[in-house]
């Protein structure tokens, strides 16, 4: 479990993996910001409806998408939800969902700053 104080993402590592292209990294961050609300809404809907398979898929999508930015805390929470979905019993997902939402909010604000977008609270 990642401590809540750990950084939401590691853009330095992300840029290094991209071969040093910071501009492309910023473009990708903006593309991520354009889709994360939709991905997170799908996770929430799956938890609310108790649909384990939908939860596994939706959490997996958040995990993969956040992994690009070396966003360890978000990836960890999403992976936990994915595992809960795989277990077939999403009744325990509430607390993890709250953590995923908090971590994603931190990630979004960090990536907005990184991407050169206004960092208003969402």
């Amino acid at each position, binding site marked *: 479990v990642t401590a809540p104080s750990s950084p939401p993402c590691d853009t330095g590592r*992300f840029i290094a*993996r*991209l*071969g040093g292209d910071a501009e*492309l990294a910023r*473009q*990708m*961050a903006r*593309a*991520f910001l*354009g*889709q994360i609300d939709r991905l997170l809404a799908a996770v929430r809907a799956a938890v609310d409806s108790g649909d384990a398979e939908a939860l596994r*898929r939706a959490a*997996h*999508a958040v*995990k*993969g*998408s956040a*992994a*690009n*930015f*070396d966003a360890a805390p978000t990836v960890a929470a999403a992976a936990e939800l994915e595992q809960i979905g795989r277990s077939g019993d999403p009744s325990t997902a509430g607390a993890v969902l709250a953590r995923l939402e908090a971590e994603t909010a931190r990630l979004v604000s960090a990536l907005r700053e990184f991407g050169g977008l206004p960092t208003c609270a969402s």
Partner: protein
Amino acid sequence: VRVLIADDDAAILHGLRVQLERWGYEPIVCEEGEAARAVLRAPDPPPLAILDWSMPGADGVTLCREIRSTPGLDGTYVVLLTAHDTRDEMVAGLVGGADEYITKPFDWGVLRARVNTGARIAALQQSLAQRVRELQSALDMVNKLSGLLPICSYCKRIRKDERWQQLETYLSEHSEAEFSHGVCPECYERARKEFER
């Protein structure tokens, strides 16, 4: 070289498009599996495909199985890109027919090397297929020459499709042989005598 890229993650898809163009490839961009399937089923499909495992429409592993079981597509070099990172999942992806399995997050330099390998193998496969076609057509020619030829005992012409053809015309059409014309000493003597008469 054209490369099919299919991923429902807009950030990855954007990165793939920009990087592949930079690396000298021609990306064909699909946001979900059905669009990717349509590209693969169209005439002259791309020799390389980078497929996300989880995406709406058709997932990458399903597409990979379809590629492997479709004659003409089965030589496609497939890189499976995925956040499925357990050992069992990796084995399942490779057993499903992927040539490469890369987990997110990945190093783009490694992806580039894999794609270059794929392009080299796809090119080798294409040149081998071309060579086989050439050998096959050469073999077809040899087969034609080794058949039973009806030949006239006097003028040595050959019957083909109800027509009588000069021997050299026939051989030129059915082999790589070419003729240079001359007169042998005996025929020369005979022709000279006939001419003198």
